[in-house]
């Protein structure tokens, strides 16, 4: 193994500097308006922690709109209301704070008793840090991250993705992605790079339904609309809540038909594997 010649602290600084070099040419400065953005999502409830964001204002607005196409608003809140873009922004900026915003400490959130510890984060082991820096920042030519060759990080994937969304939007509709109608945005999403959209889908789902301490699922909007109680420790569930079917939410046959339709659609690609 290569001997490390620099201290961990110096290494952290190098990592951040490398990131800036990589991303700045395509229009990413340090965000200065984090608080104001928080207000856009949380209607007068400024975010409690705006350290360690990544996106500039345009990237933020663009990804916010894209998450809204993936999980739209209807009679229930969608990804925009739930602040999913804040989750993604914090994830991309995870290493701007120490310990990085990767693993909430636990074991309890305080929502159902116990000391609230989800807001604190755990220090990473040496190899965990390599893994998460690879994932978020990319390998950037750093030898210990390139044991299987160069890796493109999420920060670059998002920055490039936004640029490409805008290029597609300009070509098709003559405006940036954020300025399109929802229907036009949906069209662009279909035409956009599949790998990029898959990454945003995965991260949008995470931000919609993860514990709110990670920045998304604000006011537990993602949990409430799906009738889900979230983390329950240490109170857990009572005997009756376990042993009896909860009478709320019995599906009508029309609703069951709708579920079956969704399932048939979802499993159509696996038709030959169904037993």
């Amino acid at each position: 193994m290569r001997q490390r010649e620099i201290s961990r602290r110096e290494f952290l600084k190098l990592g951040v500097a490398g990131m800036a070099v990589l991303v700045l040419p395509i229009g990413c400065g340090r965000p200065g308006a984090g608080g104001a953005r928080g207000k856009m999502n949380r209607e007068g409830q400024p975010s409690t922690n705006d350290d360690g964001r990544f996106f500039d204002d345009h990237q933020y607005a663009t990804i916010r709109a894209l998450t809204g196409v993936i999980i739209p608003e209807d009679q229930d809140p969608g990804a925009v209301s739930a602040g999913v873009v804040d989750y993604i922004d914090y994830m991309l900026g995870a290493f701007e704070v120490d310990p990085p915003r990767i693993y909430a400490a636990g074991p309890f959130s305080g929502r159902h008793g116990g000391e609230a510890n989800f807001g604190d984060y755990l220090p990473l082991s040496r190899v965990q840090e390599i893994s998460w820096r690879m994932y978020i920042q990319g390998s950037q030519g750093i030898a210990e991250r390139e044991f299987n060759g160069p890796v493109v990080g999420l920060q670059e994937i998002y920055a490039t993705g936004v640029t490409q969304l805008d290029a597609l939007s300009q070509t098709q509709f003559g405006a940036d992605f954020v300025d399109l109608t929802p229907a036009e945005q949906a069209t662009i999403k279909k035409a956009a790079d599949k790998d990029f959209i898959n990454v945003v889908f995965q991260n949008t789902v995470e931000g919609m339904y993860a514990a709110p301490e990670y920045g998304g699922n604000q006011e537990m909007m993602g949990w409430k609309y799906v009738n889900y109680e979230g983390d329950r420790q240490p109170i857990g569930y009572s005997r009756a809540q376990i042993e009896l079917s909860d009478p709320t939410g019995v599906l009508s046959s029309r609703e069951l038909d709708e579920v079956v339709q969704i399932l048939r659609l979802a499993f159509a690609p696996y038709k030959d594997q169904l037993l």
Partner: protein
Amino acid sequence: MKSGNPDVVVIGSGAGGGVSAKVLAEAGLKVLLLEKGPNNYIGLDNPDGITGNHMGNDELKFYVRNFVDMDRRIEPRTFRTSAGDDAVVTKVNTLATTVGGGTIHYDGNSPRCTQRDFRIKSIYGALEGTMMDDWPISYDELEPYYDRAEKAVGIQGQALINPYEEPRANPYPMKPGYQKYHSLLLADTATKLGYHPYPTPIALNSVAYGGRPACANCGFCGSHGCAINAKGSTAVTVVRDALLTGNCELRANCFVYKLNANANGTAIESVEYIDPNGQKVTQAAGAFILAGNPIESARLCLLSATNAFPQGLGNSSGLVGKNIMFHSVYSVFGLYAQRVHNYRGRVGTLGMDDLNKPPQPGDPNPPFGGGVVEFGAQLHPIGEALFVPLAGKLHKNLMRYSPFRDHMADITFIAEDPPVPTNMIDLDPTVKDVYGFPVSRITYKQHPNDQLVAQTSIPKLKQIHRETGAYFILAVPLAITNGGVPDTKHILGTLRMGNDPTTSVTDPYGRFHDLSNLYNSDGGVFVTSTGFNPTLTIQALAWRQAERIAG
């Protein structure tokens, strides 16, 4: 042996290694327990009780961000279905990489095997294309060790209900906890159809036990570490016991990459590992126990190849890494109008062994094998959204109903897969891990018999749903969620035990035929995969082996 060196180095702190450490340390031997992953407990060696942990009901952290699961970014694996194919980098049956290993994120299901499972060849005869064989030990020999393991990790269960149960010297240490609606719904029908459901033996406290509290039924067992230490992971039970003796030292974040044999290759002298700071360390000891898991243990033997032993250490049979088994796992879902809220409570509280019984008279050409049936599942919203990846309005509709989390009752069928020598792990020629070493390449294809077992068993499970009144039934192989690559969390074989050094790697106590002081105490020694969840059997075998080593 130099003074100050441990008597035994145990590599891996999961199901087998944790038990090895406890039994050896309590017998007075000096044990060094090396674990590749971090220690997520505070005060594991505190005599007054464990001070804290880093677990929690956090789906993002555990299910998505691999807080305990092996991280495929830094420890990739490659997979192919036959030797002629190029292997692709993908997730292949990862287990938790942390103090406690796979027992941190397992459901806790802890059935014993039956005599049938150890006598599979005698019962069914040979099966073409396999190395199917009887085990070199019997249920009766293992029974006292099942008993010790059940008490040490704390198993809840109810004896004398399951008609296929083997004789037990003692009752379960704890009675079953609350039943789960999901399980009751299906077991009730199964009983009417003539099957024999019984409370699933689980390593979860139904009452305070071993200084740990009763389970709160939070619903975060599978994939997650227990927030309140009610799950009997090896970390909070046997590893803690080992540490409390004062004879065991635990070193976390230490990756062992090499075994060094003596000149004539008859014994191991030392291991080499990378410490938490990335430095290489060489550690001598009197004996060594491989307990990483059957993939990693075989890989370590292969990584330790030298000019004198180019096939890897312990490999005169040529069978190291061969005959890997994963079980074939199927999910049979039924859609119900009422809520089944499977995300509450233990994964499944009832199961049945009726599909794992020996063939009956008048049952011509029975398929080899079968397996345990579990009534239950556990899924949370991120899992649902990723399992059925739909966007837009369809996503909202799906999630409002959350069928897989709230309205689909699941019957899980864990079917025995036979030992096939071409199903194997070896070293990938190009892909490396974060430590710079070749990763495991897994070659695995289902045996035709596996399809036969599915064809005869799945219709019976569908019938249970039909009779229960399911609106819609969906049966899928579990691998569908992982691109067709096995992700059963059951990893067995690769270092099979036996009496004949030409057809097995280890002896009936899990000691390598080739090396007088090298042992395996994970699922590597399994001769066949059996029809049951393997953890308790791994623990019983580790216990029996450790008593032998301690003399």
